[in-house]
């Protein structure tokens, strides 16, 4: 049993190992040597060739764009989802259940149904600094939405807020705190692990997203790593070492984040998944 688990784990890792070994081989070596063999030398030049492959922009630009978009989307989700979750967890008001069901319903709606209307919406929103004069071609459509709540985060945080004893909030209220202060001083600090979970997931989703950046970004210097990588693939057919280097570099931030924060990933899935 033990042995087969390890063998299976290695099998799961094969695509990663294959990506790594390929990225360090020469192009000739890739086709002549046995597939999973070690590279003859560590050909890091594949990485620099990949990084500087395009005339005007480096892969670093894509990285920077991805970081900016993912960070802003994460900030928006953490702020507005925690506010909504707080309202659903502690207040009593009319239409609470209807509204909560509506929020949850968006979880099971394939978002592609709103692809066209949202594109049209962003096309009519003015923006003086873009070539088009509207939001198309800017990164705005990729993160502004995040400041308007979200089902996953609201649900996850509400579950967490419900576990916080109301005595803590009562004590703060006796001291004269209003609901906003109770939220900031009692709920937010206690919910730090849940907030971290949401942040990590949103960052990952934004980082890995392909469809939206593909639709909204027009110029190479604005591309995210995913769109950049897909563009690479069209440009460098057959240059597997460079392509694997690019894939590996684009995955690296997420892999590092995962190794550091594995328990948050696991918690996010189990909290939102099972406590429904």
């Amino acid at each position, binding site marked *: 049993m033990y042995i087969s*688990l390890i063998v*299976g*784990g290695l099998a*799961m890792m094969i*695509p990663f190992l*294959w*990506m790594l070994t*390929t990225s360090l081989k020469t192009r000739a070596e890739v086709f002549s040597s*046995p*597939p*999973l063999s070690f590279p003859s030398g560590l050909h890091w030049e594949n990485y620099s060739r990949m990084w500087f492959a395009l005339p005007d922009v480096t892969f670093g630009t894509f990285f920077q764009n991805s970081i900016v978009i993912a960070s802003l989307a994460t900030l928006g989700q953490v702020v*507005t989802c925690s*506010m*909504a979750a707080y*309202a*659903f967890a502690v*207040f*009593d*008001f009319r239409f609470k259940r209807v*509204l909560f069901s*509506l929020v949850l319903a968006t979880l*099971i*709606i*394939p*978002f*592609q*149904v*709103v*692809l*066209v209307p949202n*594109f*049209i919406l962003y*096309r009519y929103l003015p923006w003086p600094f873009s070539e088009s004069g509207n939001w198309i071609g800017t990164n705005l459509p990729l993160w502004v939405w995040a400041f*308007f709540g*979200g089902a996953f985060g609201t649900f996850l945080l509400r579950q967490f807020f419900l576990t916080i004893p109301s005595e803590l909030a009562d004590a703060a209220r006796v001291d*004269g705190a*209003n*609901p*906003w202060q109770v939220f900031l001083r009692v709920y937010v600090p206690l919910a730090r692990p849940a907030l971290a979970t949401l942040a990590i997931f949103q960052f*990952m989703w934004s*980082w*890995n997203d*392909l*469809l939206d950046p*593909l*639709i909204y970004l027009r110029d190479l210097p604005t591309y995210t790593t995913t769109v950049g990588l897909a563009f690479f*693939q069209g440009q460098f057919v057959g240059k597997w070492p460079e*392509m694997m280097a*690019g*894939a590996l570099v*684009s*995955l690296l931030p*997420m892999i590092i*984040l*995962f190794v550091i924060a594995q328990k948050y*990933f696991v918690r996010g*899935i*189990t909290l939102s*998944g099972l406590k*429904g």
Partner: protein
Amino acid sequence: MTSPARLGGLAEPAGPRLGRARSGRSPRAREARWAWLFLAPTIIGLAVLSAGPILAALGISLTKWDMLTPPQVVGVDNYVALLGDDRFLKALRNTTFYTLVSVPLGLVLALGLATALNQQIRGIAWIRTAYFLPLVTSATAIALVWLWIYSPTGLLNSFLGIFGIAPQRWVADPTLAMPSIIAMSVWQGLPGNVIIFLAGLQGIPAEYYDAASVDGAGRRSRFRKITLPLLTPSIFFTGVLALIGAFQVFDQVYVMANPGKPSEATITLVYFIYEAGFRNFKMGYASAASWIMFLIVAVATILYFRTQNRWVHYQ
């Protein structure tokens, strides 16, 4: 001092008392006002980015619109045209095939793997990390790696060559293309399902197993009589997510079919919507396709929920 007073209540600690004196309403009314304040971004988002656009998509689907000239109302023409569009029907068929194969396969494999990983043995944390890693990877980068695995001189053909199996064209082969994409997606989707199942397994009290062992139940019958029934809520939930996710498959198809467009062997619904709307600028046509997809997912989800009573055991 009407509306500014309300905002002032946000900042000053004395606000609530002032508010009570002024509005003279019950604490409940005040609570509701706070609730709406906290929910304001969410409500705007629901209206402007979800509910509104879903209805707008329905409206747009009844028009012909290239976004350069004003939309023309054409009634249900787009829907009629879609049902006669071979590429759309292929997309529908491929997506259905993808869903019907990848969802059950992913669930069964994850179930087996979760059972195996649910043990207290040395180094289990590291072993789990290895299995979980695909969770965080982008489908774009992973599709590139698998494209290389599937390439004529790639890993898979070399491996099969050991057993004397002739090289295949995998994603370039019309019959093998979709199964190849499914294999990759199942590999990538495995960790998410395994994590949910592991949590479910860890929620099963050990006494159940002890009691069954005393009664002489073997490993297999313990799995069938205890583990499986108690895990059905997790399986049900994972199934919903997997079902909805499978219908949205796009990244893998986009990358594996790049730089050309996907052949009719691999085109999926979302790719079709993307192509119609954002490459061919047929907004009405794309919206009609997206509404058909929306309805299919809704009906499939409802039907799936209907089966719940028959096989899901809640404790």
